[in-house]
């Protein structure tokens, strides 16, 4: 059952948001963005409560999760139904107080997915559009006539910004003459020109082709970091979030499923949705769990294999649980020496037979059918629980085993987690 479909659950979540809002909303020391709001668009309900302090925060989610809508709400381009959005401790919107700062006064830089450069203006004019009045922004022609120093200040500021985004000398170009990566950096310079207190970027790399994306990723990160402006960027691509962000907020079907520092968050998905989003790849149904001491849980899989996890059993009794395994951390061993390890280590290890291995270039994707008793034939049948492990080519070729061969899967302690089933 989906949580967000019952009225009771909806009320609860609205309370949650109120609580989150009062906790983190308008504390004067709250640096960067703090949001806790609800928003309705037709039958879609978005409930976002998260923080984007200094540094780069990635808002990760599949398409349709409500990521872009969240950005629009923060920028003031979409109206929220209830809740609080605050920037550096000052409320931009607070529905409990009826406060609402209009979009044009929020000082939030916005770089949409299409970059939306003004096609009829040159690069210099695009950047100048957001310059504060004192630096040659709006009414520049009038001011420039009254104040001869204005022109130099404007030209100098534009040159500085172009230098900053590593596009010196691009003043006279037209948006149509720019490559995708250049257009993106001009859009970034235009947003920075207005001296925003926070920066929002919608899918900053998705409009670029793969080689450009690789090349531009580090540049982009360096530029944003150097600007020192708290940045929230939306992406559906885990690798993009990993390469660009310090913090992660995972959004799925209009709800935040996990948030925190990037590494720690990716290492501890609380739910199956988060597991899928974080690229762990493996969600195994379990037969039962039992406390195995103060800090451990004994997990019995459906085929009878047991694991002892260094994780206290989740307290909620009514939640269905599953076992998540991080594919990139799993290690395969030929079964013969696995027997020896099993006797010593007794813990995070599963047995199965290789179903197939696919060469994905940088790694091999190996599918292992779980089960201790299976035969070579049963391993190739498309049923029963399966584990995916990503092996380096060297590792896989050194194993020297083929489809149907028995293997043991070695699982590091931090690569296995009990998670709450919140989908299907």
């Amino acid at each position, binding site marked *: 059952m989906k949580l967000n479909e019952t009225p009771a659950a909806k009320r609860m979540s609205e309370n949650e948001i109120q609580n989150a809002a009062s906790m983190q909303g308008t504390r004067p020391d709250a640096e960067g963005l703090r949001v806790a709001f609800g928003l309705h668009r037709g039958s879609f309900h978005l409930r976002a409560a998260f923080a984007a302090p200094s540094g780069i925060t990635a808002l990760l989610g599949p398409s349709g999760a409500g990521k872009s809508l969240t950005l*629009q709400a923060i*920028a*003031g*381009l979409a109206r929220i139904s209830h809740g609080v959005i605050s920037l550096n401790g000052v409320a931009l919107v607070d529905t409990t107080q009826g406060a609402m700062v209009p*979009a*044009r*006064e*929020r*000082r*939030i*830089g*916005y*770089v*949409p*997915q*299409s*970059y*939306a*450069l*003004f*096609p*009829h203006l040159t690069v210099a004019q695009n950047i100048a*559009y*957001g310059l504060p009045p004192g630096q040659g*922004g*709006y009414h520049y022609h009038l001011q420039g006539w009254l104040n001869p120093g204005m022109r130099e200040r404007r030209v100098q500021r534009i040159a500085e910004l172009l230098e900053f985004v590593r596009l010196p000398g691009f003043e006279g170009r037209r*948006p*149509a003459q*720019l*490559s*995708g*990566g250049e*257009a*993106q950096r001009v*859009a970034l310079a*235009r*947003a920075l*020109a*207005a001296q*925003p207190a926070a920066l929002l970027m919608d899918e900053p790399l998705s*409009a*670029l*082709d793969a080689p*450009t994306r690789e090349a531009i990723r580090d540049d982009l990160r360096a530029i944003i970091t150097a600007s020192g402006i708290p940045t929230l960027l939306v992406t559906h691509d885990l690798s993009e979030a990993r390469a660009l962000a310090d913090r992660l907020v995972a959004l799925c079907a209009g709800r935040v499923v996990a948030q925190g520092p990037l590494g720690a968050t990716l290492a501890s998905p609380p739910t199956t949705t988060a597991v899928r989003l974080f690229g762990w790849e493996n969600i195994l149904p379990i037969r039962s769990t039992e406390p195995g001491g103060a800090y451990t849980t004994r997990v019995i899989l459906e085929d009878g294999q047991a694991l002892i996890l260094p994780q206290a059993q989740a307290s909620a009794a009514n939640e269905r649980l599953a076992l998540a395994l991080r594919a990139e951390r799993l290690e395969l061993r030929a079964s013969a020496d696995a027997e020896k390890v099993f006797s010593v280590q007794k813990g995070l290890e599963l047995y199965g037979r290789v179903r197939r291995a696919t060469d994905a270039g940088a790694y091999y994707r190996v599918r292992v059918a779980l089960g201790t008793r299976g035969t070579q034939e049963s391993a190739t049948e498309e049923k029963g629980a399966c584990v995916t492990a990503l092996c380096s080519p060297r590792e896989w070729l050194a194993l020297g085993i083929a489809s149907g061969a028995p293997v043991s899967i070695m699982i590091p302690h931090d690569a296995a987690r009990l998670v709450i089933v919140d989908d299907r």
Partner: protein
Amino acid sequence: MKADARESRRFIMPEMGALTLGLLAALALAYLAAPLVNLLFVEPWRDVPATLGDPLAIGALETSLESATISTVIIALGAIPLAYVLARWRFPLRWLVTLLVYIPLVFPAVVSGIIQLLLYGPYGPIGSFFAAQGNELDTTFTGVVLAQTFVAAPFAIVAARAAFEAVPTATEAVATTLGASRWRIFWTISLPQASGGVIAGLILTWLRALGEFGATAVLAYHPYTLPVYIYVQLTGEGTPAALPLALFSLAASVVAIGLAQLATTHSHIPGASVPDTTGRRP
């Protein structure tokens, strides 16, 4: 060598579908061009110099050019904001506004003239007010402008609305976050990007106003506009007197249509001449 060249220039049988499309296009062109081509042969060319010396004809041409230009300016002032509102704002009864805009297109021009006469005529609620002060609206230059404005406005509104709808909303959203007011965004972001379509629409509007006959004839038979004078000459003197006047209309149309073409090809309408800025998608 020669054999190769002949080989490469060999006639390639076009695909059936392309052939059909080309044939239909040619038929349409022939249908539109036939009366004009015929006119060139029928035209009593020796009457042309006499017509050019006819003060009534020159007067009618002047009235037409002036009134059409004034109508177009009035339409530009009102229709561009209305088109922008229809393209961008969501409000109740928006469908009704759209319907009202299209009505002058559907009505026979004579009907447009009659309903305007009911309002602006000497016994109409507005017309009687002005008539009491000695300023009749009908059968005056003002009446000509009123009739032309009513009939021609939809052309500007429909074209400008399409042009505004083609402006990416993201550019307006970004301008907002950069601190621009709606007024500034309209003038510096929306209108410049829509300018090609808006100008083309206004040129069509001017042409429509110039050629307006039905509503003008009902609301303001005098002073003669060119179309009304052509009608007068046709009923009074017959075709030979009316036809040379048509050359005026033809010349004005050719110039205006050329300008419209120029406006749309040198515009900022996305996809028309300016490539998209969404990056280089493969």
